[in-house]
């Protein structure tokens, strides 16, 4: 039964993805600026014939509905076409950049959860204590802080003044690493390269903290409020009355139920982390998907923008689906 629902949801995602594809397609084509002109603008003088040849190579000389049909049919076959500016398959370009983006999102998520869980739980157990008040004030700050500024502040403190951590990039330029998966931390582990592991982890710290601060704040607040609700419930009172130890009451009885709303929020944050990090990527010179898209938008690189946005939309749909599945798993009372 549950599997049927999941398949159903996946099928519903198809029209949404198609809609997204159509919107991006028209959006990019209605944007002023001809891709071939912009490309040639960088290369200097080119003959009109050469430009015509490029236009026909990119199918830009065909009517719009034909271009759309070609794009959608290719997409259905899993072909995202070739980038105009980089003359390589879009799928390949995205595959190169995606690990960096995912690695950063994972780093941010781990940081966020590591901070949010102790804070959320302790704040709820010791409600209205000094710890609680300071934590919630900190959480408010985390939500209100623009990531680009937090990143710069961290660079200022930890890179410029204390010189503890690097300013830019994913790995030291003098470190050699054979890439297998594109996840530098994982690759260093796989190849047993200790120097690369240390370097890539050190590069990961500041961007992860910058991106994860908001996650930490949001999750801590949700966890605290749902923990408070659970701690006041009858089953927790019963557990206490039965003489269950305080630790076990909090950890087993209250926390497990408080996880239900928390999981939803965490799941939605994963979507935000993957889709909203071009700012952090820009601050830390992180070679991820976000910067690729921003560059592609300005170069009017239609296939690249289209492909990347499809990846984002897919992540969003997938994150929502995973949240719903987890939700029903944690709370069997809810039907999908």
């Amino acid at each position: 039964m549950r599997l049927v629902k999941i398949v159903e949801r996946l099928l519903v995602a198809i029209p949404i993805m198609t809609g997204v594809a159509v919107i991006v397609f028209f959006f990019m084509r209605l944007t002023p600026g001809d891709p071939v002109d912009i490309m040639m603008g960088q290369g200097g003088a080119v003959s009109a014939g050469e430009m015509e040849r490029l236009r026909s190579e990119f199918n830009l000389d065909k009517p719009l509905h034909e271009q759309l049909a070609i794009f959608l049919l290719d997409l259905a076959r899993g072909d995202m076409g070739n980038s105009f500016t980089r003359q390589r398959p879009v799928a390949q370009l995205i595959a190169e950049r995606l690990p960096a983006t995912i690695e950063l999102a994972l780093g941010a998520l781990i940081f966020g959860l590591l901070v949010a869980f102790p804070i959320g739980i302790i704040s709820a157990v010791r409600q209205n204590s000094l710890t609680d008040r300071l934590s919630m004030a900190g959480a408010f700050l985390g939500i209100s802080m623009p990531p680009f500024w937090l990143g710069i502040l961290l660079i200022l403190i930890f890179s410029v003044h204390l010189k503890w951590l690097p300013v830019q990039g994913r790995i030291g330029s003098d470190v050699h690493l054979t890439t297998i998966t594109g996840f530098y931390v994982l690759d260093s582990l796989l190849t047993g390269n200790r120097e690369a592991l240390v370097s890539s982890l050190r590069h990961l710290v500041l961007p992860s903290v910058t991106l994860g601060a908001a996650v930490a704040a949001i999750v801590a607040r949700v966890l605290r409020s749902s923990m408070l609700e659970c701690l006041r419930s009858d089953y927790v009172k019963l557990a206490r009355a039965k003489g269950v130890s305080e630790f076990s009451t909090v950890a087993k009885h209250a926390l497990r139920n408080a996880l239900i709303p928390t999981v939803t929020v965490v799941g939605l944050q994963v979507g935000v982390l993957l889709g909203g990090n071009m700012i952090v990527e820009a601050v830390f010179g992180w070679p991820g998907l976000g910067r690729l898209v921003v560059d592609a938008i300005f170069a009017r690189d239609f296939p690249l923008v289209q492909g990347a946005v499809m990846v984002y939309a897919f992540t969003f749909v997938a994150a929502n689906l995973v949240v719903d599945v987890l939700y029903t798993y944690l709370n069997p009372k809810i039907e999908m």
Partner: protein
Amino acid sequence: MATTTASESIPSWRYVWGVRWRLWRQNALEFWRELHKHPISVAGGVVMVAYVLAALFAEQITWHNPELGSLRNRLLPPAFVASGSWDFPLGTDAQGRDLYTRIVFGARVSLAVGILSVAISMVVGVALGALAGYRRGRIDGLISRFADLLMAFPFLIFAIGMMAFLGPGFVNLILALTFKGWVEFFRLARGDMIAEGTREYVEAARVTGQKPWRIVVGEMLPNILPTIFVLTTLRIGFMIVTEASLSFLGLGIQPPTPAWGSMVADGRNHLLNAWWVSTMPGLAIVGLVLAINLFGEGLRDILDPRLKLE
């Protein structure tokens, strides 16, 4: 409350509005009393008002040109640092412009973009939400699907795409933020309208033969307004951060007009020798957004505990 029996005629508009006014005043008084229990939110509100006043009277409270500096005054430190002077309270940037002046003028951009983009988003979103939630059927399906589509785009990517599409500029910036910003208001208003639609007073209004638009605007909208108002406040903070992010990437307000995001970006090249250039405008953003969020959080506690800041 007016209890009309079958023999009585429908109460006059004057009578209805009299009751409404008394109820409204009662609510406002109650709201005022509740506000006293949220001193931190009140503080947030006060800071917000201070920012607005500073933006309005920028010319009166500053004494330098926000767009023109002198290279002789390049990268001077803030007044509270040993070598600083009170002529430039927060120091100067690489072009010798007074940071304090630029921050005060920058508040105009942030507040104007934040307030206008949220206001337009709210009007569009609530209008469509009310329409979809009251009428349901085909039109609801159509707008809801479109809203779902827009939800699948990351906000910033969408805004960046819109800015590429429209080109830079103040009006375009607001358009870019509004184009996706209405969706949250739409979803909230639609859900609330559907919930309200099942209540008795709506049925009563229908039975008395009121026109649909009158039921929606006169009867239902006032009831969902508090929730909408809370979301409005919380979204202004978000829009201000998004505007600053776009300006940081060089896509928002164009130089030399001061905008906080681009000022932070300017300071990136001087982190080693002039930390204040990036830090000060950032503090201005944090102060304002924090104040808005604190105020909105208090409003939420009082008006609608369902909404959470996320």
